[in-house]
Structure formats: structure tokens, C-alpha cells
């Protein structure tokens, strides 16, 4: 949900559900799990999936106004910015199947949804293939919302549009942060995590603790993918045929099936090369089988050009505040001590004309020159 929420909100609005009638469960927390999810878990697995029991329970039992429908999509594939550059863009197998697992905990003794007058809807969607989605949504939701195919198609289009606008805005904001760092020779920190690590109860706001020391934080999901910037960073490698395009990860990761893993690997490559990212913060949840094979490769990618790499692994329900604080202090120490050296070192590896250092006039001239050159 953390990477596709805009789609769902826009979809629901388009079919006539008003904003005040769209309710998201609150951020994950231990209290939420204890109060609403206790006894509903059916198996031990990674925390982001286990936590879903609390979310379901909160939506059923924790609302002032009873809900009529709970929608928990089974997202098979994701609309990644890397589509076309990788083998597939699949969601993690647990993320896609999590709703079936969690639903079982609310069905095993009796139908808790039905008992509470709630319709449960879990559309199975290939979000990486927009042409598949209207039919999938219609098949699952036609009776739930009393919608026809044309309405569904419009709502899906609205959903994708909203998601695109949001992502572009977030990428533009990240570019502003990176530009500020470049122009002021300031270091920033890249978070390599999965979208659910943005949930304060799952990622435990580790990056916020670091930000409090004055270091700008950027998330890999919203790194800018503008041509000028990617050409500057990856252009020489593309020309040398080491990679097919700036978003190609075949040089570091062979089985590019998982969308979020693909993005993490690419984010690591970006972080390894972008001069003002002097530190990469790797977040990983307890028992994450998708992250597990990537631990060493991501570290090796990031550290190859001297970028600092710190991993917070096995994140679970409890925030280990004490150890996080100590590690944050360590990170801050290293950032302060080595950032300048790292920035200079990495800058020396790239062509001189960083697009972030050019003003608008220069960028426009460069862009025109490149068009003329290509003609």
C-alpha cells in the first residue's frame, strides 16, 4: 500500500466514494497489534505481514463509525519506474498473498467480517500491467460497489494518473533536496528499504532520528529518474556497454523478478555513484526473505566507491530505541568525519558537468545542444 496508496484513493473517489468515507488503518504499532490483532495470527512470518492482523482488527473493531467494506488488494506486480529494464516487477510473494493469510485469522472460527456487517474485498491486481487491471478490479468489485466496466476503467485510469502525479512530485522534491546538497556541498543519506519501511511502526523512524542531526534524507523509491541526471551518473557505463540503460541492473543482479528488490539494487547503484549521498541506510525487517539474498550485494555495491553503509536488520515490532540511538551517533560521527572526502572522491569519478549544478538557463542550453547534436 505504501507505494500505491494514491492509486486506491483516486480509484475509490472516482467511483463515487467521498474522501471522508475512505479510511486507512493507522500506522503500525505494537499497541494496535495487541488490541486488535491478538489471537488472529495464523503463522510466524515477517513483521510487515504479521502486523496486518492489527490493521484488519482496527478496521473492524476500532472505528467510531462502522465500516461497510474492507478492501485489501492482493498486489501481484507493481508499477515500478524500472518497468521495461528488468525481467519482471513482481510484488514480494508474502505481500501479494498476505491478505489471504491474514483473512484466515478472521475466518477460522467464524466469519468475523460478515458477523460485523462488513464486506471483505481483495482484488488480485497486476499493477505493472495497467491493461490487465480494469478487468481484475471489475471482476472482484462489481458487486461490492455496484459498478460497471466503463466506470471501473475510468476509475483505474484516474488511479494510475494520481499515482503518476504523486510519484513525479515526490521525485521532483527529492531532486530539489539533491540539488541543494550539490550546490551547498552538503552530504545526504539515502534510505534503502521497502515501501513499508515508511510506516513509522515498521521502519521505526530510524531515518528521522538521523535527520534530526541535520542530514537530509532521501528514499530510493522517489529518487529522480530524469534523463539529464541519469546520463550524468550512468552515461559512461551505458556507452561502454556495461549496462543497457541507466536503469539496467543486470550488471549487479541477475534474477530481476522482484520489483522492490530491483529498485533496492538500483538505489544501491545510484547511492554508490551520486557524490552527495555519502551514506546509505539499509532497512530490513525480521525474516524478510526477499532482502536476505541482497544483504551482501547491496553492501558491496554501495561501498565500492567509498560510500558509508549501515544496515538495520531484523526490524520487528519493538523499536530497540537504545541501540538505534547508539548506532545513529556512530553514523553521525562517520558522516561528519568522512562526508567531504567521500563527496570529492565520488565527484572525481563522474563527468564535470553535473546537471544539478547548472542553473536553469544552462540546463536549457545544454538540452537544446543535445537535441541539435542528436539531429
Amino acid at each position: 500500500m505504501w507505494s500505491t496508496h494514491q492509486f486506491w484513493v483516486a480509484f475509490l473517489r472516482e467511483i463515487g466514494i467521498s474522501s471522508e468515507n475512505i479510511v486507512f488503518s493507522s500506522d503500525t504499532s505494537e499497541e494496535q497489534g495487541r488490541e486488535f490483532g491478538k489471537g488472529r495470527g495464523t503463522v510466524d512470518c515477517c513483521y510487515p505481514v504479521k502486523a496486518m492482523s492489527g490493521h484488519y482488527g482496527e478496521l473492524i473493531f476500532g472505528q467510531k463509525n462502522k465500516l461497510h467494506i474492507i478492501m485489501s488488494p492482493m498486489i501481484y506486480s507493481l508499477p515500478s519506474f524500472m518497468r521495461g529494464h528488468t525481467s519482471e516487477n513482481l510484488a514480494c510473494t508474502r505481500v501479494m498473498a498476505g491478505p489471504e493469510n491474514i483473512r484466515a485469522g478472521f475466518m477460522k472460527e467464524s466469519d468475523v467480517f460478515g458477523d460485523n456487517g462488513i464486506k471483505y474485498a481483495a482484488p488480485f491486481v497486476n499493477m505493472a500491467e495497467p491493461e490487465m487491471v480494469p478487468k481484475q478490479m471489475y471482476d472482484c468489485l462489481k458487486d461490492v460497489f455496484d459498478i460497471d466496466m466503463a466506470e471501473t476503467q475510468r476509475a483505474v485510469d484516474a488511479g494510475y494518473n494520481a499515482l503518476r502525479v504523486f510519484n513525479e512530485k515526490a521525485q521532483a522534491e527529492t531532486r530539489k533536496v539533491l540539488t541543494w546538497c550539490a550546490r551547498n556541498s552538503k552530504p545526504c543519506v539515502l534510505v534503502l528499504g521497502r515501501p513499508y519501511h515508511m510506516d513509522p511502526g515498521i521502519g521505526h523512524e530510524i531515518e528521522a532520528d538521523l535527520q534530526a542531526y541535520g542530514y537530509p534524507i532521501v528514499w530510493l523509491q522517489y529518487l529522480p529518474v530524469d534523463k539529464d541526471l541519469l546520463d550524468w551518473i550512468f552515461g559512461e557505463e551505458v556507452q561502454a556497454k556495461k549496462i543497457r540503460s541507466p536503469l539496467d541492473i543486470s550488471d549487479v543482479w541477475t534474477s530481476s523478478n522482484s520489483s522492490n528488490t530491483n529498485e533496492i539494487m538500483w538505489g544501491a547503484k545510484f547511492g554508490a555513484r551520486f557524490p552527495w549521498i555519502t551514506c546509505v541506510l539499509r532497512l530490513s525487517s525480521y525474516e524478510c526473505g526477499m532482502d536476505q539474498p541482497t544483504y551482501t550485494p547491496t553492501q558491496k555495491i554501495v561501498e565500492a566507491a567509498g560510500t558509508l553503509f549501515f544496515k538495520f536488520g531484523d526490524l520487528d515490532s519493538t523499536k530497540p530505541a537504545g541501540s538505534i540511538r547508539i548506532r545513529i551517533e556512530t553514523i553521525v560521527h562517520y558522516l561528519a568525519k568522512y562526508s567531504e572526502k567521500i563527496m570529492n572522491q565520488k565527484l572525481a569519478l563522474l563527468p564535470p558537468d553535473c546537471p544539478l549544478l547548472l542553473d536553469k538557463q544552462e540546463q536549457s542550453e545544454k538540452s537544446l545542444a543535445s537535441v541539435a547534436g542528436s539531429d
Partner: protein
Amino acid sequence: MATAVTHYTSYKARPFTREQRDKTTILFGGLTWKHERLVQGVFNNLNYNAKPLPNIARADLDAGKELIDTGACCPTIFTTGSLVNFLKNEVAVNGKQKTLDDYVFLTAGACGPCRFGQYHESYEMALDGMGLKDFRLFLLAQDQLDQAPEKPGGLEINMHLSLGIVWAILVGDILTDMEYLTRPYEVTPGETDRVMKESADYLFEVFQQRPLRSNKYGMLAWHFLSGYFADALRVVRKKFDAIEVDRLQVKPKVKITGEFWLQTHEGDGNYNIKRWLEQEGSEVMPPPVAVWLGYLLHTPLWRLAAKPNVDRKIRMKMAMIRGMEKLYNGTYNRFRKAMGNVPHELPDQEELKQLASPFFHHELRGGEGHMLIGKALHAHLHKHANMTCELSPYSCMPNTMSQGAMANVLGRHPDLLYAPIEIKGDAEVHALSRCQMILTEAKKRSQSEFVEAMAKTGLTLEKIRQIEEKNPKVKKATYRIPHYGYASTAANYALHLASMRAN
């Protein structure tokens, strides 16, 4: 500029050339010793030197853990450790360079989102850790029969090889099914194992001598039409004919399901649980690899049907897949027939989907997907097994999801005996005692079934024995016992003998 720093790159196997083929041995593994023996025959048939890795041992777990990232599932750790230990030994005996030159490793790849598709990352990490980054490792995609490159290399994953491997798997499944149907009831202990060894050696020769056609489509047609393998299985049947069995021993039937590697494996990797179950007095229904291949063959139909416009082209594709499926199932049934129809039929993929659909969406990929639920319900509702034992690796991503959904299944089918066993590789007592608890109940069920069946016959056990003596063919391992609606063999057998008396 960027040349000043060497950015990280992942493992790339150095070439395995056509000229090196004669001096190089292809290592492989991941199946049972029977399947692997037959696959070895296929490689030899195509003039490759090939060798299965030694069967998984407990020491492989430790070796694997040392060299790969923490948190891996146990099949990853075991299989990595197995390769590591083999190579360590080779390096110690023959030296590093000779090991690098003499061997390549072929492994299955691609499994959508599951970690199985990324096992090779662990192998590569382990090779790096051992200082053997130059060791050659290749991936065999499960969904492509023909991956032949334009320029012939040392290893050509073409139709000849892929068909051979698939047929070796089907024959290996038939053989394995016969083994598990026979051994629990053998009158002379060790007889089944002896015949199995003999049969596997014979079939190895059969695969090694497989006639080859130069044209790949000719090869495809030959595999579907020739009686070559069915004839060979008839020879194997004669070997099994000689095994005398006593099917009046009341034993619960335990269906094994689970993650692909764990459910298939026979050894320390799953605490040798199939043998253990037999020692505990049960009959095991092993999982045929053919069901997985059938799933791979069938699932594109669902994906095509989900397309927004199912036009003529898509319908043609679907018809082609259905045709292939018929040929595939027909081939398996021909092999079953050659063994007297004793081995179990393959379940219908559409039925597995329908059974699982109230609990688990059929398009949720990764691992066995909805099949674990479908198979458990299939065995339960058709009374093919008294209990289902599901083997799941600790932290297996797809299995944990369907296992969780089983809570919903058990809510609706509380009489389904289900033992989900989490396997870490180093917690044998815990896993087996958990299985024991459900097995105790399954034993009671099989006893009740037998009592009920005997009551239906209206005969005493002595009388049943007399009928058996008068019809010595029923004591052959290759005699097929019809299904009379009971899971356990003894109950069906008693009813069958009673029906013989009536005739």
C-alpha cells in the same frame, strides 16, 4: 573517469566451451537419488559427463551457513552447503585449478518472486567466499525447454536435453511412487530397496541409450509417441512382481506436501521424514515432481484467460497448451499403465484450483502457490490419505502464506488431519514430535477405517487371509487395489478381498 573505481558486478560464469565438454563433469542435484540417476543417464546420452552431488547431509547445513547471508531458508543453506562441501573436498584432493577446470554446476532457476529463483545468488556468494569465483555455474530455466544459444557451447540447454530431463523426472516419479506403495508392506525387509536400486540402474541404461533424432520437433514427437520408456517400465514391473507384500497391515496413509525441495528430498535435509514415517508405521504418499511440472504447464492458461481481450490468437495459444497438457498427462498415464496402474494419478490442476479458491487465490505465485491447500483438500475429500504432512522451510516466504490460510481451511474442515512441519535443519526432535502428535490421530483413523471395512465385509480376518491365500496374485507389489472410499490401504484391501470371494 569511472575507471578509477571498480564498481561491484555480480557473478558471471566464465565460458564453458564445446571443446571442454569431454573433460568436464556437470554437477547437479536437488531431486531424489532415483531422479538424479536417470537425469545422469540423460546427460550421458547427450555425451556429457555428469554427476549428481552427494545426497544432502547435516554437515551441509553448517557449511552453507558459514558462507551465505544470514536468514536464508534451509533449502538454500543445504544446497549451497552441499556444493561447498563437494568442492572443498575436490580442492583438497585434486587442487583448485583442476576443480575449476573439471566441473561446472547446473541448477534450476526462475521461480517468480520466491527465493528459489535466487538460490544462485547464494551459490555465487559461497563460491566467492571459498575463493572459487571462477567456478562455473549455469541456470536451467524451468519454463523454457529450448535455451540453445546460437553458437554451440559446452552446455546446450536444448530440446534434447530438456525433454530427456522431463521424461527422467516422470519415470523417476513412477518409480518413487512404486517404492512408497510397496516398502511399508514388504514381507521380506529390504526387498523393495534392492529392487529399487536394480530398477534405477536399469532405467539409467535406458536413458543413456535413448535414441536421438536430429530435429527437435522430431525428438518431441518421438517422446510422446514412442513406447520406448513404457516398455522399459514393463521390465521394471516384472522386478516389482517378485516382491511379496502383506497389505493387511493397518497403516495410516500420510500425504507429503510442502515446499518443492523439502517435499521431494529424501535425506537429512528434511530429517529423513519419509523414512521416519514409515518406521513409525505409516504409508507415505510422496509428492511427484510431475505435479509441479503440470502446474507450470497449466498456469499460463489462467494468465491468458485473465487478459482483457481473449481474441482468436489467445484462444489458439490456450488450445495449444491444453493439447500439450493432454499429451503430458497421457504420457504419465501410459507410464502408470506400464506399472499396472498401481502408481497414483496426477491430480487435475483445475480441481486443485477450485478446491483452494475459497481460501487462496490461484494466481498468487511463488513456491507451490495455492496447490498446498488444493492438495491437502484433494487428499482429504477424496479419502486418499489419512493425514497431510506439509514440510515448510523455516522462513519460506510462499509456504508461510498458504500455511496461514490453512487456518481457514481447518475451520471449515476440522476433521482434516494436517501437520505443518517447519524445518530448519537442526531441530529434528521438535519437528518429528510435532508430526508424531498428528500421526497418532491418523493411526486411530486408519484403525477405525479397517474395523469399519471389516464390518462391511462381514468376514473374519482369518477368512480374509484364506481368500488372500487362494489368490496369490494379490500379494504381488504390482497388484492394483481399487479404491473403496477409504484412505488406508488395509481397509480397501479387505473390501477388495471380500469382493473376490463374492465373485
